[in-house]
Each structure stands twice: as structure tokens, then as C-alpha cells.
């Protein structure tokens, strides 16, 4: 997957797809966070809606289940005043034998402006953006083990709103790094935003080989991993991993890597605790921590809507400008031109 920046940006350097933070520069990531900050305010208005995407059609294409991500994307699109169609592809035409390509071409023919894509295969959103429908804005809502950029960026938004600048921060990411679709994006985003102390904490069986080359340190124990950190990001443990012998048992995992009040005391006194949800109480995290004053878990939900509104409006903006720039060019350059 080369040229990630080029695929995501217009000729003028504006965002037109959002697939991964990888390849986007610091200025762009900060613009996403700045825009999201303004959308947080919209969430506090009496009318929690802005007219930006009025008359635009956003299609949520969910090839795998994710109630939480799907509902926040749906709410984000609605708060931007877009018309929203949510397709659970497993129960729709593809199960009748229609190919992905045909499904997409059909949706495009309905003048859809944006696809929010969730897929079990790594690279699915990239494929759609590069090959199938380059003139529709694509937002990656999670693909395989590869990326989950809006989750990673909402985590960045949470950190910036509660901790300020990234440079002096120590951030620990704890749990199943190997199977996490968000950890990679978190590392890319943290590095780009200037964070230099990124620690990955987890058992060897859940740590990708050679991950240190991304500029992070790995820790087998919580003691060294979260010592004096400013931010603890807990990853969700997918219990099905237990069955594949990656882990001995839930109890054993909690004993070694569970975030307890006692363990959290090793981090800085004002450290924040984050988790993408849904949380497994008593497996990754103790209830007292999840519901405690340092927990950002519920704040993250609200920030998630604002962040998704930001990338959707920015990508739509870039996509429309790209269409305008090519409006007088012969058809075929960025796909069929539309009036």
C-alpha cells in the first residue's frame, strides 16, 4: 500500500478519503483535531446539528458487525444534516450472490457522496478508494487487523483535550497489540503528533514481531509499562483469542495485565485511562478504574461523534473541490463526472 498520502489527499493537499493516519502530516492531523474541537461544541448546542452536508448522501457499508462504531457514524452523519443509509451487507444483496463491485456500482449510481466502510479484510477501504469509486469519499471505519483510524484519532482528541501537547507525554498501550486494528494507527498518530515515549504492554504471544521498528518500546510487565505514564490506553481483549491459545485464561490475564486501582497508582497521579469499549470488566480493567475519576471512557464516546463529523466534513469538502477542479476535464479522469 504505497502512496497512502496521495490516495487520501487531493491535488491541493486537502483530505478526500480518510483511510489511516499513516502518511498524513502533523498539520493535517492537527487540522482534524481542531475541526473536531469545534464539533464538540455543536454537541452542546440546543440543536445538535449543522447544515454542512445537507443534500449529501452517506452510505454506511458494514460488512461486519460493530454496533458502537456504526451508531456513532450514523449519528455523526445525521448531525451534519446528511441523508444516511446504513447497509448491513451480510444481510443484503451480497448474500444473494452480488459481488462487492456490483453493490458499490449500484450505490454509486444512486448518487451517494460518501461510503463509510467497515470490513473484515485488511485493505478493503483502500481498495474501494483506489480502484472502485475514487470519486466518492471513503471513510475507513475499520478494516481487518490493519486500521481503525477514527478510533485512533478520537483517542488523540481525548488526549489533547485533557493533556494538551503530545511532546512531553508518556503513553502506554496495553493489551492485545497483535490483533488490534487500532494500535497501529494510534502509534502512527502519536508519533506524527510528536509523542516520543510510546510503550506497548502485553504478553509476548500478543506482541507483533519487530514492532519496535515503529519507534516504540515493548514491555512484558505492567510495572515497567505504566510507570509514570500520563496516558494509559487499554485495548479490548477479544475473548475468542483465549480459544486460540494466545492466552492461558481470563483470570490469568487480569492478574498480569488488568488495570486495577493499585496498578494505576504507578502512573502519574493525574494520568488518564482510555478504552475503546465495550469494556470487559474484570478482564482488562477493574470496575473501580473504569468508573473512576481518571477514566475517559464515556468522554471518548462524545469525542468519537465529533471526530467522525470532522473527518466526514473534511473529506466531503476535499472530494467536492476535486470534482469541481475536474468538472471541465474529459470523463474518465476521476471516474464519471456528475452534474
Amino acid at each position, binding site marked *: 500500500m504505497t502512496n497512502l498520502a496521495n490516495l487520501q489527499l487531493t491535488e491541493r493537499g*486537502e483530505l478526500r478519503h480518510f483511510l489511516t493516519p499513516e502518511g498524513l502530516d502533523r498539520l493535517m492531523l492537527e*487540522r482534524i483535531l*481542531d*475541526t473536531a*474541537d*469545534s*464539533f*464538540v*461544541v*455543536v454537541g452542546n*448546542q*440546543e*440543536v445538535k*446539528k*449543522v*447544515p*454542512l452536508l445537507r443534500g449529501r448522501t452517506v452510505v454506511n457499508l458494514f460488512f461486519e458487525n460493530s454496533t458502537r462504531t456504526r451508531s456513532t457514524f450514523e449519528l455523526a452523519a445525521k448531525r451534519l444534516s446528511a441523508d444516511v443509509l446504513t447497509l448491513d451487507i451480510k444481510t443484503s444483496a451480497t448474500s444473494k450472490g452480488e459481488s462487492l463491485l456490483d453493490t458499490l456500482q449500484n450505490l454509486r449510481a444512486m448518487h451517494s457522496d460518501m461510503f463509510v466502510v467497515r470490513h473484515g479484510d485488511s485493505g478493503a477501504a483502500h481498495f474501494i478508494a483506489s480502484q472502485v469509486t475514487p470519486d466518492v469519499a471513503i471513510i475507513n471505519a475499520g478494516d481487518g487487523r490493519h486500521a481503525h483510524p477514527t478510533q485512533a484519532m478520537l483517542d488523540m482528541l481525548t488526549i489533547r483535550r485533557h493533556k494538551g501537547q503530545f511532546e512531553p507525554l508518556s503513553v502506554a498501550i496495553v493489551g492485545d497489540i497483535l490483533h488490534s486494528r487500532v494500535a497501529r494507527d494510534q502509534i502512527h498518530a502519536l508519533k506524527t503528533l510528536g509523542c516520543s515515549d510510546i510503550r506497548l504492554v502485553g504478553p509476548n504471544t500478543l506482541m507483533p514481531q519487530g514492532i519496535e521498528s515503529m519507534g516504540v518500546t515493548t514491555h512484558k510487565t505492567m510495572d515497567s509499562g505504566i510507570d509514570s505514564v500520563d496516558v494509559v490506553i487499554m485495548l479490548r481483549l477479544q475473548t475468542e483469542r483465549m480459544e486460540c491459545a494466545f492466552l492461558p485464561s481470563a483470570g490469568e490475564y487480569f492478574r498480569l495485565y488488568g488495570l486495577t486501582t493499585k496498578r494505576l497508582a504507578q502512573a502519574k497521579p493525574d494520568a488518564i485511562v482510555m478504552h475503546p469499549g465495550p469494556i470487559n470488566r474484570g478482564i482488562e480493567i477493574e470496575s473501580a478504574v473504569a468508573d473512576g475519576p481518571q477514566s475517559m471512557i464515556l468522554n471518548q464516546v462524545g469525542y468519537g461523534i465529533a471526530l467522525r463529523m470532522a473527518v466526514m*466534513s*473534511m473529506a466531503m*469538502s*476535499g472530494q*467536492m*473541490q476535486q470534482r*469541481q477542479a475536474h468538472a471541465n476535464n474529459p470523463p474518465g479522469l476521476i471516474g464519471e463526472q456528475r452534474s
Partner: protein
Amino acid sequence: MGATQTLKYPELADTPALVNHLLDQIDRLITTHKLDQPLVIGIHTGGVWLAKVIAEHIQAPLGQLDIAFYRDDFSKNGLHPQVSPSSLPFNINDRHVLLVDDVLMSGRTVRAAMNELFDFGRPASIKLITLCSVNQRELPIQADACALTLDLDVGQYLQLEGPEILKLSIIEHANHD
């Protein structure tokens, strides 16, 4: 640049005098319309600078609006690259609002600002305050207080510099958004 206009409108050379003239008008406006405990809301960015001066003068709470999400040219010009959060640290329901912008030209910014305001609540009234009005309205919107009204040539725009020292001047460029 804009030399002819500066000669034609000598008031442009003295921004503090224009501001004082505007403050006098606002005092009269508040008295005439019996605006009890008005709120001052500035439109980002020049309007906010001016609103700060007005809020201090009349001892009123200050809020700010960034209308980036409410503009009517999103399809044409996209999202403004620098968006700053709107901040209304008060409830506007049933309150009198002084909406402040530095320059009133097409009227589109004010329309967007009013749309945004109504998403925060239902004010009792809105009065529009502007330092300078340019006779190029595209919408039926007029100021309730305005220090100077003028005509400009095509390609000329008014710009307020700030925030510490406010200075109004004419600039010329082809693609002003």
C-alpha cells in the same frame, strides 16, 4: 492601494474614532429599544475583536461564533481550513443579542451567524452591529448600528487588523472568499 477611497472617506484613517462613534450609537440603541441586559456576540475573527471592545464598554457578557459550519458556499469553497470553536458561555433564550461583525458586505456571513444562533436557542431579539458597511448587499440584511457606509470598487475589500490595536483598511485582491 485604495488611495482614492481613502481620500473619499477620510474617516477610514482614524479607526479609534470610528469605534467611538459606533459605541455612541450602541448606547443610543440600547436606550431607545430598552435592551435589558444585552449579550454581545462577535463573529470570528474581526467581529470578536470589536465585540470585546463593545462588551467592555457596556459591561455585558461576551460570546463568539465561528460560522464555518453554517456557510452557504460549502459546495463551492469547501470547509474553511481553520475552524475555531464557537463559544457562548451563556443561555441566549429570551435574551437581547448584539451580533457584531467588523464589516457588513454581502450579508451572507450574518445570515449564517443567525442560523447558528438559533441552534443555540431563541433570543428575544438580535441587533446587528458593524463597524463598516459596504454597499454590496446580496441579502436583505441591514445593520442597526454602523459607523461608516461606503462604496468600493470591484476587487476591493475592507479588512480589520487587530486584536490589540484595531485598524481598518482597504485591501485589493482578486479572490476574496
